[in-house]
């Protein structure tokens, strides 16, 4: 009985790593750039399809495919911000939401048109099937462990990037006061574009892991977005380590709920989110 619970809780923590990966890009765009990207989940799904093409049509190994995708994702994010999203930055917040909502619809229908509605998955071959035995009947999938480690690593790297590098300081400066940045010759347009490029690198990384972890179809974006939102709100908007905490809380809640009744798995996550929102609306590790 204890082993069952221990397994389930470990699963929950590992799942929290995956959820952190979903959320980290949204944490950057919403928390740091103050930009609510409704299409965040759809961009993750779009990246999953890009990986699907790279692994099936070109026969690449998923790890190689993801590494190829990342620089492309950076350029895509940079260009998207520079030439499209920048037009609505600083205007009415509603415009940002409407524009990214439109992007969400375009991506979902574009994917449906191009790939059909069937669920897809990328094979992680041995990475997926290998398990690590921790003794006493406790086993964890190797891929789950890799995902969790990647999530912690990504949070750590981004935190160092934002707080220890010159570009990171510029991004935080623009986040503090866009007009002041422009007044002293820090081009906010350029910095926003770089930040969005980095956000899209995290989207590419998230896609690399989730495309092996579970199925995806053109309509799975909004679910990813919902999870990402719950994670960053629970963690505290703009706090990267908070996103990790939020991800783990959500993963654990789902694992525990699922242990009582599988039908309660998803609902338990939402309930814990609502409880955190009610008790601690500023999140677990508030930044502002």
């Amino acid at each position, binding site marked *: 009985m204890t082993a069952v619970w221990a397994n389930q809780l470990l699963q929950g923590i590992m799942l929290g790593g995956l959820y952190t990966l979903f959320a980290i890009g949204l944490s950057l765009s919403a928390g740091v750039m103050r930009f609510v990207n409704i299409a965040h989940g759809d961009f993750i799904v779009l990246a999953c399809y890009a990986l699907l093409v790279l692994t099936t049509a070109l026969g690449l190994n998923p790890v190689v495919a993801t590494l190829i995708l990342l620089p492309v994702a950076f350029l895509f994010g940079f260009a998207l911000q520079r030439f499209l999203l920048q037009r609505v930055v600083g205007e009415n917040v509603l415009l940002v939401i409407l524009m990214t909502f439109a992007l969400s619809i375009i991506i979902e229908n574009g994917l449906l048109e191009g790939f059909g509605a069937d669920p897809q998955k990328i094979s992680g071959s041995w990475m997926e099937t290998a398990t690590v035995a921790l003794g006493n009947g406790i086993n964890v999938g190797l891929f789950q462990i890799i995902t969790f480690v990647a999530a912690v690593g990504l949070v750590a790297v981004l935190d160092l990037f934002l707080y220890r590098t010159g570009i990171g300081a510029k991004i935080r400066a623009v986040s503090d006061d866009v007009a002041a940045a422009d007044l*002293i*010759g820090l*081009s906010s347009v350029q910095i926003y574009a770089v930040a969005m490029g980095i956000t899209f690198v995290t989207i590419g990384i998230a896609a690399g892991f989730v495309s092996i972890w579970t199925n995806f179809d053109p309509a799975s974006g909004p679910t990813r977005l919902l999870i990402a939102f719950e994670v960053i709100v629970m963690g505290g908007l703009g706090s990267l380590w908070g996103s990790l905490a939020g991800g783990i809380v959500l993963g654990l809640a789902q694992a525990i709920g699922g242990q009582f009744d599988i039908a309660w798995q998803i609902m338990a996550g939402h309930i814990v989110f609502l409880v955190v929102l009610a008790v601690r609306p500023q999140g677990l590790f508030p930044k502002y």
Partner: protein
Amino acid sequence: MAATAASPLLAVESVSVFYDKFRAVDNVDIAVATGEIVSIIGANGAGKSTLLKAIIGQADRVEGSISFAGDNIVGRSTESIVASGVMLVPEGRRLFPSLTVEENLRLGWDVGRKGDIGFADVWRLFPVLQERRRQKAGSLSGGQQQMVALGRALLANPRLLLCDEISLGLAPLVINELYALIPGIKQRGIGIVLVEQDIERSLTVADRFYCLLEGKVSLAGRPGEVSRDLVMKHYFGV
């Protein structure tokens, strides 16, 4: 290109600046030479800050010509104007409150023209900032924040320094301290534009002054050569 008497460091010629249809600056001519302190005085809404915005490339619509070191800079990006050696100390300081003192200062170095003013100079001018370099800028007192804003601008190694109301909201003692530094900045050959509502203060350090009234230059000259009464008359337009 060295600025000579014939071509000053900054030459604002027949410049008008508009907010939509409203002409906030109306056909203004202003010149600043290397190592010269020029004071621009005027009441609230006279167009002083707008003029600085136009020089730094942050005004929406500018007519006329603004040349810096011989190049017309109207229409150029703020980024490129700053990199060529013009730096603004904005009204209200406009630091980035969540960044540390050191990070705020470093931004000045990053955006600016690389030159011989470095962190050591800023620490020498403002020892208190070195002590507090790891503190968030938002936690400093108003005077210390103004020191960071000035330090940030100096680290950009400007040839022309634009100071917008640096005395605003500060205690007289702190203002004295800041103004005491201005001759030293001038000695480095930096041209300085002081925009102030505090006439007395800025006229005591200035080599020349311009008084703006409703967007126009109402009076110009050297502080010693005009009476305070005349300045007041053109300041208020009565």
